[in-house]
């Protein structure tokens, strides 16, 4: 365990989540400090997505606690966590497929702009929502694709749109679940460049299989194996960490290189 850092933005204590006989999250503790890009890596089935889902509230832990911004959010439903400034992107793209790109982003802006029990005015004509959405789309390089229906966007564009949607909620903490999943070489490079920009503005937790990207981007890396943290340190230390090498990097690295 690393020394406790001052004022973590996110603090996870002794989190446990079981599925039947399998312990997907095994007494997991973790701290994310403001401003850092904290990567979480681990072989398939290490419980990364399970962890992210508990952080955002899609999944409730069996025990343990999650504090966000000093507040206990363990039992809070996901929509309330989102309002506190916790945003996520999904590993498997999860967008409103029959809506245009800008509608997807504008809805995220709308969610954080008072309640939506407004029944009369045309929401697509609310300039401040449209402007916020357009800005987020520009940010991820989708400015020219605003009016395209999501199902017509390429996979890479949908990954970028995931990010724009998360950004439009103006999060304090961005949880990115494998943003490079399924991206080609050039698309991955664009995503890395984009994340390099974003990290200046927002604290990021990045779950990613692409080791090159992780080591290029992360301030600290937490390594999960079978739901447990086996190491948490700066990239150079993780590279040299024996247990990590044994449990993960050796075989998995080769596999990642394969695809």
């Amino acid at each position, binding site marked *: 365990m690393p020394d406790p850092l001052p004022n973590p933005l996110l603090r996870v204590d002794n989190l446990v989540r079981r599925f039947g006989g399998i312990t997907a999250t095994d007494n997991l503790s973790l701290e994310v400090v403001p401003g850092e890009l904290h990567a979480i890596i681990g072989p398939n089935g290490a419980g990364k997505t399970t962890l992210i889902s508990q952080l955002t509230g899609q999944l409730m832990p069996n025990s343990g606690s999650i504090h966000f911004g000093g507040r206990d959010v363990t039992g809070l439903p996901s929509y309330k966590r989102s309002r506190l400034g916790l945003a996520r992107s*999904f590993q498997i793209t999860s*967008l409103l497929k029959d*809506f245009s790109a800008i509608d997807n982003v504008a*809805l995220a802006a709308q969610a954080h702009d008072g309640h*939506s*029990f407004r*029944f*009369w005015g045309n*929401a697509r004509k609310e300039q401040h929502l449209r402007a916020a959405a357009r800005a987020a789309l520009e940010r991820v390089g989708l400015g020219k694709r605003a009016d395209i229906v999501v199902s017509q966007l390429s996979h890479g564009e949908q990954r970028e749109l995931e990010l724009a949607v998360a950004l439009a909620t103006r999060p304090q903490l961005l949880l990115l679940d494998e943003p490079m999943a399924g991206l080609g070489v050039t698309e991955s490079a664009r995503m890395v460049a984009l994340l390099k920009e974003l990290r200046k503005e927002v604290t990021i937790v990045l779950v990613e299989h692409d080791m090159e990207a992780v080591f290029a981007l992360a301030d600290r890396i937490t390594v999960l194996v079978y739901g447990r943290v086996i190491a948490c340190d700066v990239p150079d230390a993780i590279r040299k960490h024996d247990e990590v090498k044994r449990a993960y990097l050796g075989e998995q690295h080769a596999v990642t290189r394969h695809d």
Partner: protein
Amino acid sequence: MKMPKLNASNAVAAIVCAALVLLPVYSAVTGNIFILTLFTRIVILALAAASLNLIMGYGGMMSFGHAAYLGIGGYAVGILAAEGFGSGFIQWPVALAVSALFALVVGALSLRTRGVYFIMITLAFAQMAYYIASALSRYGGDDGLTVYKRSDFAGLINLSDRTQFYYLCLACLFGGLYLIWRIVNSRFGLVVQGVRSNEQRMQAIGFHANRYRLVCFVIAGTICGLAGALLANNTDFVSPAVMYWTRSGDLMVMVILGGMGSLFGPVIGAIVFLVLEELLSQFTEYWALIMGPLLLLIVLFARGGIMGLLGRTHRA
């Protein structure tokens, strides 16, 4: 004001609207009273179907108990009339309020579930309403309740006059469609449609999905309650049969036939369904044998219903 796009579906909607407005003239000129009677019923059920479309087409909530509101609206009018409250200014607000309340209870319980369970629970509630109405021996029980006098609007409008009543129904339909159109494009409407498309995503960006669903469910129930009040006035009669599950099925068929999630689809659906029913039943009592395969073809080959075939380009 932006002009609506000129395409086949909008053109058809405009022509149908014009035809509905001019129908009483045609009826008066030709002396064909039957067509006015038929279309009064069609217009009322189109309003009910449009309200179902709001939750089913836009909200993705497959309610299989929507006819309950037709009965509730109808019974509110019938029971109040029987108890000596003949004024529409009392009857209609009560019809709407009771429908809204029923929708609130049904929605609050059934929206905890999804998919088949949601369909079953809404069906169960509607059947419950059906049996309760059957048990109201004071109000006719199984045999139903005759409404001896139509709702009285203090001389403003005479509901017993065929033409006036038709235009009232038509005004309610157009008003209902306009309301739904505004709702669908509002902040609220986008949230409801977003939840239909991807509930998990909507929760993740900060929407309490079920709250929006519930309000949408109540709005649809209330609009259908209005259709129920009109229906009781139209037939001068209300019976439990209005609420039977096959009637809920009819409403669903109208929506699917016309085009789910298309504003005008349910109107087309109601017209096609009820006119076909009328025509086919003149030839054979087994008219459902023809209606069934027709619906099958629509579902298999034209997911967007008739409006979809006409080239509706996008939802809402």
